[in-house]
């Protein structure tokens, strides 16, 4: 494999008793990249991170760093900093001692340590908190101290296990930006675990979507959102309407009484059962009568979500209604009301096709 990869995982398997936590996971990470492991709870994200850190040994598989096999390397010879899900700050040490904890073993002078701590605190925006104890800090501040501690030894790799999940929504979105900026500034290769798709979408250079111990897709945020490679990814990253359909001709899919035109691309042949999918925001209402894939729908329910309105649309030949999001701006032109019938369009270039049933 390529030697440029900073970190390379090859066919990692992890068993806990009879439970397979990770199954054949392979992955390349480039230097300086911000990678997110995204997936539902229990999908194996933490397990994978712990293997990379060397805290756990994989049942099988190899890890290479800059071409060297480090699968068996003890923790102390690896070069990474880690921030645990709930920070794990030493409650009995003050902020400065927490941050300097890793420096002791590296023969720093007292003054050097001091300077480094001050520098790190400035970096994470907590100057002057040296003497405080973790219990005296808010969740967000603790999180930053944990980050500073992990960065103290200038590791080549930064591992973050759901660093934001314990914080409340506002602090979270604020820290998101800060972490991202810090990472960009330091250029440190970073792996972050999260189960929050928005977090992954906004922060990552590369998202690794996982499910049941398997990698479902690897790609840029945009790529994962707009071209999900499996129904799971489609639904986990953003919202998605699904229909069952059958390949009924070149670029044509039949779903119930509907015949939908689709962009070619997925390889399906006549008669194949497929799943069509479209995101709620991709459904159009202001469409010309001659546009492709238009259909009549009945507005079952309208839900006000602030910046947009969520409508529940009943299509004649389909049992489950579909969801369409309409921005308030568009809405003001449409004057939609519950019970009304409306013409809408499922643009061909926004239809996703997945082979097989869900």
């Amino acid at each position, binding site marked *: 494999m390529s030697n440029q990869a900073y970190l390379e995982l090859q066919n990692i398997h992890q068993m806990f008793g009879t439970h397979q936590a990770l199954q054949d996971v392979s992955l390349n990470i480039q230097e300086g990249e911000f990678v997110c492991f995204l997936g539902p709870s229990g999908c194996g994200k933490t397990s994978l991170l712990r293997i990379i*850190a060397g*805290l756990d040994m994989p049942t099988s598989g190899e890890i290479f760093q800059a071409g060297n096999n480090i699968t068996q390397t003890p*923790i*102390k010879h690896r070069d*990474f*900093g*880690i921030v*645990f*899900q*709930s920070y*794990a700050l*030493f*409650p*009995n*040490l003050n902020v400065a001692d927490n941050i300097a*904890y*890793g420096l*002791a*073993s*590296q023969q720093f002078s007292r003054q050097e340590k001091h300077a480094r701590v001050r520098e790190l605190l400035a970096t994470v925006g907590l100057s002057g908190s040296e003497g405080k104890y973790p*219990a005296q800090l808010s969740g967000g501040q603790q999180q930053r101290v944990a980050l500073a*501690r992990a960065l*103290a*030894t200038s590791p080549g790799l930064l591992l973050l296990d759901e660093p934001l999940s*314990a914080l409340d929504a506002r602090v979270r979105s604020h820290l998101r930006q800060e972490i991202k900026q810090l990472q960009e500034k330091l250029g440190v290769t970073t792996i972050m675990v999260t189960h929050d798709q928005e977090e992954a979408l906004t922060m990552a250079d590369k998202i690794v979507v996982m499910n049941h111990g398997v990698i479902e897709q690897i790609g840029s945020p945009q790529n994962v959102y707009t071209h999900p490679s499996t129904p799971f990814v489609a639904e986990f990253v953003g919202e998605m309407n699904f229909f069952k359909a059958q390949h009924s001709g070149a670029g044509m899919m039949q779903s119930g009484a509907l015949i939908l035109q689709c962009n070619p691309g997925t390889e399906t042949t006549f008669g194949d059962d497929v799943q069509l999918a479209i995101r709620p925001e991709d459904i159009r209402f202001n469409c010309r009568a001659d546009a492709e894939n238009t259909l009549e729908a009945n507005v079952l329910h309208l839900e006000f979500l602030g910046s947009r309105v969520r409508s529940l649309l009943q299509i004649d030949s389909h049992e489950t209604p579909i969801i369409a999001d309409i921005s308030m701006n568009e809405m003001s032109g449409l004057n939609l009301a519950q019970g009304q019938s409306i013409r809408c369009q499922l643009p061909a270039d926004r239809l996703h096709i997945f082979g097989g049933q869900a």
Partner: protein
Amino acid sequence: MNQSNTATTEPSQHNTAQRLFSNLFGRRSLDEWSLGSVLIIGVLALFICVVLPIYTLLSKSVENRAGDFIALTNFSQFFATPSLYNSINNSLFIALLSTTIVTSLSFLTAYGISRTRIPFKGLFRTILVLPILAPSLLPAISLVYLFGNQGIIKELLMGESIYGPIGIIIGSCFWTFPHALMIMLTALANTDARLYESAEVLGASPIRTFFTVTLPAAKYGIISVAFVVFTLVITDFGVPKVIGGQFNVLATDIYKQVIGQQNFEMGATVSVILLLPAILTFLTDRWLQRKQSALLTSKAVPWTAPKRQWLDRVFLGLMLLVSFIILSIILMAVYASLVTFWPYNLSLSLKNYNFDLMDGGGWAAYWNSIQMATFTAIIGTGFIFFQSYLVAKLPGFKVLKWFFHLFAILPLAVPGLVLGLAYIFFFNSPNNPLNGIYGTMTILVVCTISHFYTVCHLTATTALKQIDGEFESVSASLKVPQIKTFWRVTLPVCMPAVLDIASYLFVNAMTTVSAVVFLYSYNTSLASVAVLNMDDAGDIAPAAAMAVMIMLTCMLARLVHWLLGNVLLKNTQTWRKK
């Protein structure tokens, strides 16, 4: 929905007084009022059984025999008597040394149980807490047989006499060890794997990890153990009485002043002096507990010990050694109680179990003890749990609850000996309308419950706090009387804690000496006191025999507790299963 109209209508004009009135009375239902009056009774009961006796004792210490106020004359007399105030030095010496030994040993053994991979942890644990089931006199008696002039291994002392500080320290360490171990185990159970991983990731050595992670986490536990052991030792008089020889300590002084010289006022004076370190200890401990709770985080991940071969071996050795010592001391007592006439006739017989021919009250004392312990367990558990429940869950009555809590915590700081003496002064006063209970089983039960009140109260409160605070609000909104929720929900959910309290009370009532030694009378002599009296009269083997009987009874009680907890509760507590 139409029920809303049936809501009682009240005049729509409210002035402040009226509002205050209805705040106080109008809105409380009959239900709440009756529970409230039970709470009031509880506060009164504690006031009478704890606060007043102690007040009486304190006032005795500044009175002369005739009951006149003489300020601190008793105290200056105390300090003017070298033999008396030497006891302070002796007491401090014994207590400090025992504290050091027990604290370090209990830390090491607790570490062995919770942080290493040695085998048979459950077995070790069971053995190490055995001493809690025996009266504190048992190790002292056992030591006589081990190291006395006819002791089987007296050579180990290399000519030193067991009668004196050595004996007191060994005996004290033996009986306080399980108390220390249990606190230490909880302190060390508080592992957080994340901290160990962080330390490892940051490159800390095992030693550094021990000092920066393990020790700080257990710090408050260790300090707490030190204080608890210190108080237990300095207030215990059973061990020094039996094996102290001429080495006087404060606790035996009280006994001598009262029993030997009928000098109650000086007894009260020494009691007050004994009360000081205990109260100091108690306050410090409270303060530490509060500090500790601020440090605990909820997200800790339990840590599992890695394999460390030589460390595990060292700890296995230590556990074997400590278990061996404990078992030897217990088995020595058992053996001695079966020997016909030590050391001249070593054939085994049950002669020493013929208590009716000895001082101390005979078998009747044993049955009295069982009766007393049973009453204490049943009445005590009922009273304590229900009162704790009211304090925790009844709305309102803030001032009352505050006082209740204060009174409930107070007994922890009062040594049993002091409490017992206080009871004489208070309950035997002819103008006390309650003096009818003096000399009856009732006063023993009341005194024992009071003596051990605090721990039970805290156990109950902790259990109750873990229950959702909204249960009572839910019941109110569903118009179900609160007492019904107590029966149907709170009590069943807290059953394990209730059993713990009952078993704790039973065992302590069986083994306690200090509080009841002044209070028993002819038809209420107790087994634990009988041990003391038989030893006092020189009937050491029968004393050992009675101590063994007490220990066996406590073991049986624990077994019943275990069966109830494991067999019975398992069936009724299916709801705990996921």
